């Protein structure tokens, strides 16, 4: 249960663009143990998906470059693995599901063919056995009349059903790690809840570790054990889910939590917002990337990049001011209230 499955250390990914080098991921560390779920949160462009694609080895070859770090899967550095080895891992030991189930299935093949393809690729089975496995998986993800629906095409399924098919495809070979890149973003709220329930149930049944990429803090609270908060390509806070919600230590995390609407708040106050916009990733600023938007930024925040500190056991924060004055931040009081 406590065996480390995936360890990412100091991952840096740059993109070469016509405007210059874009520092998309800048020093990400994370640790994922067997059967655990890690939530990766942050706004668009914070490097969540790029981190996931780096783990999959699916970064666009023409533009992306891994500038440093290690991705250890069972202690083996995936960044040094060859293409053939990565192909054996993908879909077999590491799987991924994508944001938009409406476009993630190939419109010219039946559902059965597509789920069976993953099995055929990685197991020594014939087409018939692969289809049997496909039926099994479709049943597991809750598709009614799985045997008949096997012969249906993607356009005959609703969005939620397609996401179930995607999950069936991803889990068909019993992967140890499932990367879910905003799996519920494109779905409506009731379907979101069903898909989250399904993922939780499958995680408990199959002991798959999950990296859940999302900007929905509700999803994190529902499903995750650990949370990594990213801002502008850097990890700013990394802790257990309780710690993040109960005592968020980074002003950005506090800002995110404060911006959530609450059902029991009748005061009619406007929601808190984080002033400003995320910085351009084309420059690699000297100080804290969040400093221009941070209410508590001091001179040192603009001068030097904060290093990561452990404010509590297992609770890492990259902020000069974290823990400096307990409860001394405006956002801090807010977050404390919201618990």
């Amino acid at each position: 249960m406590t065996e480390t499955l995936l360890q990412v250390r100091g991952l840096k990914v740059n993109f070469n663009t016509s405007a210059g080098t874009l520092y998309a991921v800048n020093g990400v560390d994370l640790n994922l143990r067997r059967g655990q779920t890690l939530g990766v949160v942050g706004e668009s462009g914070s490097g969540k998906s790029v981190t996931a694609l780096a783990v999959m080895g699916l970064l666009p070859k023409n533009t992306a470059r891994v500038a440093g770090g290690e991705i250890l899967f069972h202690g083996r550095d995936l960044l040094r693995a060859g293409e053939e080895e990565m192909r054996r891992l993908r879909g077999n030991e590491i799987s991924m599901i994508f944001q938009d189930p409406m476009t993630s299935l190939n419109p010219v093949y039946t559902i059965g063919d597509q789920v069976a393809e993953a099995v055929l690729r990685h197991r020594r089975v014939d087409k018939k056995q692969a289809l049997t496995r496909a039926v099994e998986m479709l049943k597991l993800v809750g598709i009614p009349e799985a045997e008949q629906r096997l012969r249906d095409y993607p356009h005959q399924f609703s969005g939620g059903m397609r996401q179930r098919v995607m999950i069936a495809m991803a889990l068909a070979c019993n992967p140890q790690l499932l990367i879910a890149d905003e799996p519920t973003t494109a779905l409506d709220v009731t379907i979101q809840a069903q898909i989250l329930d399904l993922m939780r149930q499958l995680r408990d049944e199959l002991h798959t570790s999950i990296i859940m990429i999302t900007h929905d803090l509700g999803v994190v609270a529902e499903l995750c054990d650990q949370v990594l908060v990213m801002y502008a390509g850097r990890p700013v806070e990394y802790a257990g889910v309780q710690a993040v919600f109960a005592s968020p230590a980074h002003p950005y995390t506090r800002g995110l939590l404060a911006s959530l609407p609450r059902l029991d708040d009748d005061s009619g106050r406007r929601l808190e917002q984080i002033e400003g916009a995320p910085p351009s990733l084309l420059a690699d600023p000297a100080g804290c990337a969040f400093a221009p938007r941070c209410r508590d930024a001091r001179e040192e925040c603009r001068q030097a990049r904060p290093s990561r500190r452990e404010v509590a056991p297992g609770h890492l924060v990259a902020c000069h001011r974290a823990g400096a004055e307990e409860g001394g931040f405006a956002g801090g009081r807010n977050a404390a209230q919201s618990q």
Partner: protein
Amino acid sequence: MLASETAAPAARTIMPARQYGLWYDAWRRLRQNKIAIAGAVIVLALILAALLAPVLAPHNPLSGNIIDRLQAPSAAHWFGTDSQGRDVLSRIIYGSRISIQVGVISVGIALLIGTLIGAAGGYYGGWVDNVLMRVVDIMLAFPSILLAIAITAMLGPELKNAMIAIGVVNIPFYARIVRSTVLSVKETEYVEAARAIGGNDLRIIFRHVLPNCMAPVIVQTTMGIGTAILDAAGLSFLGLGAQPPTPEWGAMLSDGRSVMQQAPWMMFYPGLAIMLVVLGFNLLGDGLRDALDPRLKQ
């Protein structure tokens, strides 16, 4: 969940043809398009003429009675006779075999090579794409009939060589269409998903990308057959394609040229046949485009 469970069986009963999927929808749309059906009928007539030529043709297409030369259309010779007394109708019917052969083989060459070039360029991008597409651009810089003439002149005036020449000059069109479609299809999430379950490049190109590029390729192929028939007739007219006494429509036009005043039927009927067949393929191609991708129809 509940809703979808109850709705699914109901949907099955009102949509009995669901297993046909995409292609069934396209066929249904095609059937409603009268102009496309007219094109399909012409194409079908051509195919039937080619298959049933020995049954349909009233006379031997290769030999005639010299005494009957240059006869005007009559009950015995519906389309008249040519300068060697051969029956023009029979020659046109047999000529459909050559036309189909030319259309299918030369478009086949263009389609096969063009698809490979376009798929490689579109999928891999970078220098592969640059090199392949510049070669294609160079080929496009020549007027296609001139390039075809040059190739046939080089290989020797023969029907086989004319087919090769027409195939080669048409490669750029297929390469470009396939490349542009591959460019958009390769960015789709299902291709990324195919990578995420461990597919290799060849498998992804042939199984996931190309089948999704078929619609525009089918349209281009259909129209391309018509154009290829026209080009082959052109080459034969110039004496670079089918050689006498082969009953080829372009060659027949050429034969009739010298006696155009006395025997206009010698040029009229082969010309009409070429026009109808090209028209048929174009109408069918247009209809297929509308049927396969309704969004393209504005």
